[in-house]
């Protein structure tokens, strides 16, 4: 029989309660209790394989979330632990990885695009369209004004040095490839990632 980790939890949860009470001579009552006892919360949760977001040991983690993936069911991450199957961390996590749930739910997680106007002392919430339209417009204005198509010797160089970008260190390789494509097709050369520091 193939047992998923989740169904294993369900079975052992009930089985443990039953055998403990059974050993004390409450066989029938124990079974009744086991069926009534609140099952482990994780048994209801959806288990997702992921990788710790911090250092590059890249410990395997299991994320438990509520919500079955249905369109109108709001998902919520309730628990994160080390993946015992992972060949490097074998289920363990360090003081940072053990607290991953707190970074997912940090009160300073950003929820809306925000904009700060020149000279202003505060951010205001804006729509994605406002933010992306304005950013694209500012980029185009700067690029059209400062793009260097040829250098002083007449060599085609097609570079843009007056707008720069720093790429992430915890985003996926797929994200980074798309980012590379966009930045380089614009001729961007002031372009770096966290490896430099």
């Amino acid at each position, binding site marked *: 029989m193939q047992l998923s980790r989740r169904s294993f939890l369900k079975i052992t949860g009930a089985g443990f309660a039953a055998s403990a009470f059974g050993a004390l001579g409450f066989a029938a009552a124990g079974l009744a209790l086991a069926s009534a006892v609140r099952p482990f919360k994780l048994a209801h949760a959806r288990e*997702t*394989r*992921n*990788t*710790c977001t*911090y*250092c*590059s*040991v*890249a*410990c395997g983690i299991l*994320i438990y979330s509520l919500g079955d993936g249905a369109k109108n069911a709001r998902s919520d991450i309730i628990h*994160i632990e080390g993946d015992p199957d992972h*060949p*490097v961390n074998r289920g*363990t*996590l360090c*003081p940072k990885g053990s*607290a991953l749930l*707190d970074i997912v739910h*940090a009160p300073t*997680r*950003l929820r809306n*695009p*925000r904009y700060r106007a*020149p000279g202003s002392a505060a951010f205001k919430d804006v729509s*994605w369209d406002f*933010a992306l339209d*304005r*950013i*694209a417009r500012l*980029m*185009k204005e700067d*690029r059209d004004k400062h793009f260097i198509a040829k250098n002083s010797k007449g*060599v*085609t160089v*097609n570079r*843009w040095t*007056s707008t*720069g*970008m*720093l*790429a992430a*260190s915890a*985003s*996926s*390789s797929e*994200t*980074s490839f798309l*980012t*590379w494509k966009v930045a380089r097709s*614009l001729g*961007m*050369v*002031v372009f*770096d*990632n966290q*490896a*430099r*520091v």
Partner: protein
Amino acid sequence: MTNTWQDIKNANLVIVMGGNAAEAHPCGFKWVIEAKIENKAKLLVVDPRFTRTASVADYYAPIRPGTDIAFLSGVIRYLLEKDAIQHEYVRAYTNASLIIKDGFSFKDGLFSGYDEETRTYDKSSWDYDLDDKGFAKVDDTWQNPRCVINMLREHVARYTPEMVSRICGTPQDTYLEVCELIASTAAPDKAMTSLFALGWTQHSVGAQNIRTMAMIQLLLGNIGVAGGGMNALRGHSNIQGLTDVGLLSDAMPGYLTLPKDGEPTFAEYMKTRQFKPLRPGQTSYWQNYNKFIISLQKTLYGDAAQAANDWAYDWLPKLDVPLYDIIRAFEMMTHGEINGYICQGFNPLQAFPDKGKIRKALGNLKFLVTMDPLDTETSRFWENFGPQNPSDPAKIQTEVFQLPVTCFAEENGSLVNSARWLQWHWKAADPPGDAQSDIFIMAGIFHRLREMYRKEGGAFPDALLNLRWDYTNPFDPDAEDLAKEMNGRALTDLKDPSGAVTVHAGQLLDGFAQLRDDGTTAAGCWIFTGSYTERGNMMARRDATDPREQGIAPNWAWAWPANRRILYNRASADVAGKPWNPVKPILEWDGSRWVGIDTPDYTPTTKPSDSVGPFIMNAEGVGRLFARSLMAEGPFPEHYEPLESPSENLLHPAVNSNPAARVFADDRAAFGTAKDFPYVGTTYRLTEHFHFWTKHALINSILQPEEFVEIGEALAHEKGIDQGGWVRVSSKRGTVVCKAYVTKRIKPLLVAGHPTHVVGVPLHWGFTGQARKGYGANTLTPSVGDANTQTPEFKAFLVNLEKASGPVS
């Protein structure tokens, strides 16, 4: 890492120098403990502080920050003097026997070809003596005084134990014990692994720190073998991946490099990238460079990249300076030469050197975009947070966009770990509020710009307008689509020489050996080819089976290149193909092919008698004890003091610090001297925190709630500072007021006869999140980088420290 995390358990000796794995990589460090318990390995730690890694070490040697090259050059001297090298390995697998050409020299701290004006070298003399076929001349008897091994011996002769001790502050008897221990791994069946991190990179001589240890590992025969290798413990979950995909100023995916102004045509560009073998019969795998770059250009531009237009070579930007790195970027910003800046998951106000300079420079921008799951300091640089971020918002005209993005738990995709494993992960929940992925944002900016250029025209739109974008969902492309794009496909039916079709048009490729230079293949990142094939997503594999439990696990996820887990694994066997260590073999020659637990370095049927070297990416086929022209400051490592140093260079006072380090004038003006700033500062991570992220997490903020510096008891006593008392720490660039943690873990070092104190500066503090407000270590650090990589010198700088009263509030 050349090896895997689990492979550390195969070591006989683990040296941790330039890192603190127990605290910064705790779950990886367990494999060191495994090596100690299961393999009776010894752990050796060299560090300015008695770290938690040191606390479980068998041997600990203190060292002054910034003197690692002197320490390690003395080890090389010891190994050569005692003849404690693995002779057969060194002769067959390194360039020890190759002859260096006349004209190359080293005198008073400078190699031949130095130009004081430009602070750069003419490196034409840093090369081998070539014969008329262009091959390097060799003297296998090592009689020729210009053999690499003899020139190296002469170069390191100055690094006597006495001299090393005077420079590094390491007691001589401790140092000699370390040398003896390292030398013990010259035995063919013994291995030492080197574990290092930013303790080596963040120096003005960072790349040479690492290189010196790599040379030791070559001399000992410890590269390519189980339990050996050079193992860079990378610090962020996908910093390896972002480097592999080429998100660096001068890079393209798969370690291809961006063209320079001096390479006006594709033919000119390829001239310096053909990598003709320097010894007969060598692989010199970069000879396939044109296949990789043409396949990249086909990925980017499809039919618009043709042989007739040099594969759209002109559409790639060209560089007029070696690097537009971060230090140059903020120098340009300071002078108003940068108007827009986009920070994707990056917090430069906390991460870059000389915070005061960074804050001022950001205020010169016309617009700043941050993309981050968290409320970063950078996105609020304009806001007044008191002494930790003084600002007058009314005077700052920068438009700021703070864009909320998903975190790891809310997206699919792959990350490359330190051991080059591409591991897939899955989305567990939706992001909070209206947050979106970085992919959504980059696609959104791309579509808007492309539309504007289509309608309005503007500066050179060709590359943008022709960029291939055929994703299932163009507005928020799936990670799977992008992964397949990097892996690559056949664009037409690919045929073998007999005319039989090997890969059908449109099919995903199995490996980079299938790439072609005629435009019939596309691959976005050639080293990832094989990661997502017609058999499925190799990165999502979860078979942890590990033959002989030797720490390879070849079917767990996928490793670049070609799922090879131990780089240079050919070197694990002797010249005839017999494993050096019969108990832990990786590969061996069975008479007709290479067999073993890992993917061999080259075609499995390459005979040992063909003498193809294991270092297949090098034109020589062998490991380099002499780096030719590949390093900025010299083909042999040399000790140079940090730019801010408490001591003169005892070897050559006239050339004190790295002569090839690029220093901008205003940064040089902000360097202090030992007269005003007598103590050596060094930055590091705490085990409870990750950079500037975890202060947003409650548990971590409770564990380590506030900024502090670590000082030794002797300095505390001298300055009248109590445990937990307030101190003012200053450099020429700024001041931090925080608490002092008085510790036995830092002791004064005797440097050139003078006691030298080290001040430890943890780096995690800022003014957003749940921990208490702090100034941040970069308030103090100098703006100068390694001469090759421009990684800032955070690990050795000068500070002063005074007792202070607490903050008035």
